């Protein structure tokens, strides 16, 4: 890595970029500051330990089922009549999303640190059920915090997590409220390990989550070179906090010829409609009242991308012009779901269908050797009720 590489992590205080426009940092109360510094040191130490990384790699392969396939969506490509579309099949991972890779990494880190209890937050419940699975596997008790609105709509993940032995703490609201409450739960128990589920919150979480999820991009490189004899021209992924997308693109950040497009939910598009603010431990683009006091939430059908903020590294990449960020409406998401389901026989989670909606726009008119990789980061089971509700109304 060179000095000016976009792949260089944040500085020692967690900032991406320099001066007053830098994003990230550490904006939490004093009670958690020692825990965050301890975590950062433990992380830096662990990633120098070959035995630790080998253990992570072992369970990635045998427990999660990595690498996830890079699948040529031939029917969809033909239907759109343009670019060659490849799905990075993260939904085929154990527990059904990309989340488990980060859960595995952080629970192994917690184990290495000798932590006896885990906390996590969740929006779509994917991070909750993934962390619950790994917590069960390594025998560490977990409390998951989720919003009541989300608990109702992603019931399957809640049931699975219960079967794995995790305890659920319900708070009014959605992912935003869950994140704030997870921090409160951690303040009350600072000796617990907080398994942050996305590339958000205070340093060092954005760095840790990016590190764990960057395996996605490394696999894309290897698989694409092997299968297609070239690298992708474009990578598209959905963005809530942004863990799946940063994991997909981090490997390629210095390769400017590869276009990267992140897609947020139109109703909570922090990078398109937000401004920099400091909440939930980080400085990043957020939707908030002009005086900064109130986070603003819209609602999206995709619980995992209904988030008023975004990970600080994405804010930095936006400011650098290194990545393009756009958004998709509920209607576009449902339409993309239908197209993918009917052309490829894949019932995807709704969140990555925000990215698929952008693929539908981008693929058309592109030459046949133009490769678009879509990160398909979750499976549809959790959303079937929501989708059924809209069947016949918003689409047939």
């Amino acid at each position, binding site marked *: 890595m060179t000095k000016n590489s976009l792949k260089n992590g944040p500085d020692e205080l967690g900032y991406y970029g320099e001066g007053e426009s830098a994003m990230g940092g550490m904006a939490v109360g004093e009670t958690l500051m020692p825990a965050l510094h301890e975590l950062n040191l433990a992380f830096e130490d662990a990633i120098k330990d070959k035995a630790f990384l080998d253990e992570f790699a072992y369970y990635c392969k045998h427990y999660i089922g990595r690498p996830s396939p890079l699948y040529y969506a031939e029917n969809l490509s033909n239907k759109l009549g343009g670019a060659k579309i490849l799905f990075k099949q993260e939904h085929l991972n154990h527990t059904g999303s990309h989340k488990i890779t980060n859960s595995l990494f952080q629970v192994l880190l917690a184990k290495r640190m000798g932590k006896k209890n885990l906390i996590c937050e969740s929006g779509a419940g994917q991070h909750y059920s993934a962390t619950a699975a790994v917590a069960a596997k390594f025998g560490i008790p977990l409390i998951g915090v989720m919003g009541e609105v989300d608990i109702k709509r992603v019931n399957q993940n809640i049931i699975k997590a219960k079967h794995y032995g995790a305890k659920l703490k319900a708070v009014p609201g959605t992912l935003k409220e869950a994140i704030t409450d997870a921090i409160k739960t951690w303040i009350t128990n600072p000796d617990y390990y907080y398994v942050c589920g996305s590339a958000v919150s205070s340093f060092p979480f954005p760095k840790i989550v990016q590190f764990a999820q960057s395996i996605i991009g490394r696999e894309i490189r290897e698989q694409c070179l092997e299968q297609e004899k070239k690298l992708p021209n474009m990578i598209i992924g959905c963005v809530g906090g942004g863990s799946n997308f940063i994991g997909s693109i981090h490997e390629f950040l210095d390769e400017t010829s590869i276009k990267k497009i992140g897609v947020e939910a139109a109703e909570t598009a922090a990078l398109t409609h937000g401004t920099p603010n400091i*909440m939930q431990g980080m400085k990043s683009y957020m939707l908030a009242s002009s005086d900064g006091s109130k986070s603003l939430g819209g609602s999206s059908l995709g619980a995992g991308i209904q988030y008023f903020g975004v990970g600080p590294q994405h804010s930095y990449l936006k400011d650098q012009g290194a990545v393009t960020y756009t958004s998709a409406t509920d209607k576009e998401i449902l339409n993309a779901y239908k197209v993918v389901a009917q052309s490829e026989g894949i019932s995807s989670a709704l969140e990555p269908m925000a990215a698929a909606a952008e693929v539908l726009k981008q693929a058309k008119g592109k030459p046949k050797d133009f490769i678009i990789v879509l990160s398909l980061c979750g499976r549809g089971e959790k959303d079937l009720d929501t989708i059924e509700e809209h069947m016949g109304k918003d689409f047939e």
Partner: protein
Amino acid sequence: MSERLNKIFSKKTPKTKLVAYFVGCYPTFQISLDVIKEAIDNGVSILEVGFATSEASAEGKIIKTAHDHVLNNNDTLLDVIKLVKEIRNYNQDVGIILMGYIANLYKHPIPKFVEEITEAGADGCLVVDAPHELKEENILRNELNNKGLSLIKLVAPTTNETRLKEIIKISSGFLYQVNLSGVTGEKSAHQGDVNALIKNIRAITSLPVCSGFGIKTPSDAKDIAKTGCDAIVVGSTFVKYIQDNIDDKKLPQNVGKLIKSFTNELK
């Protein structure tokens, strides 16, 4: 460094050892002002006036509910600064600290905030989620220093000795010792724990120390005041009283009586 805070702590103890936290503009600007005037008349030495933020990460249910109420009323940091000005007009001796989260200050923005609170007669501010690692804390501290105001820093039970020394080095006015790991208004503080925490600080500095979190009753206050701290902070108890009696016509006077029950134990 605030001259007024200096004066408050310059005698062996302040007038009374009570620091009272109120959510500014809760339940309304006027009632909030009337309540705070009663608090002053009943012996509070320092007021912490809170401004509301939706994602306040260290607040328990009581203060969170008050914050949401203020936000729903559209009372902003500007209104709280106006409130501070009214309080200062009413009394020139009481210490006034604005207390809240960095989001509001960042958007205000910080230099304008410092200018306005100086003009309003505040003595400093305390920002819960702005540790010295945060760039905006450095900007804020610098601006406050230039105006002779104090940035009140928190010390937690989790703060180790190295960190404690760093914090003391940049503190002025007083140190806020957080008595327990938790959010506001839930757990109770234990005298033995607080004794140990205060002793650690006293070994390093002569800076005044206010002890807060987990102090709910006058008897708690009396116990914690014996730990060697210079004052104790009570917040959720007062905010809860306001919450439970929000329609009481005599709310300010009754809060005054409640304050008196604390200050009687803290002279």
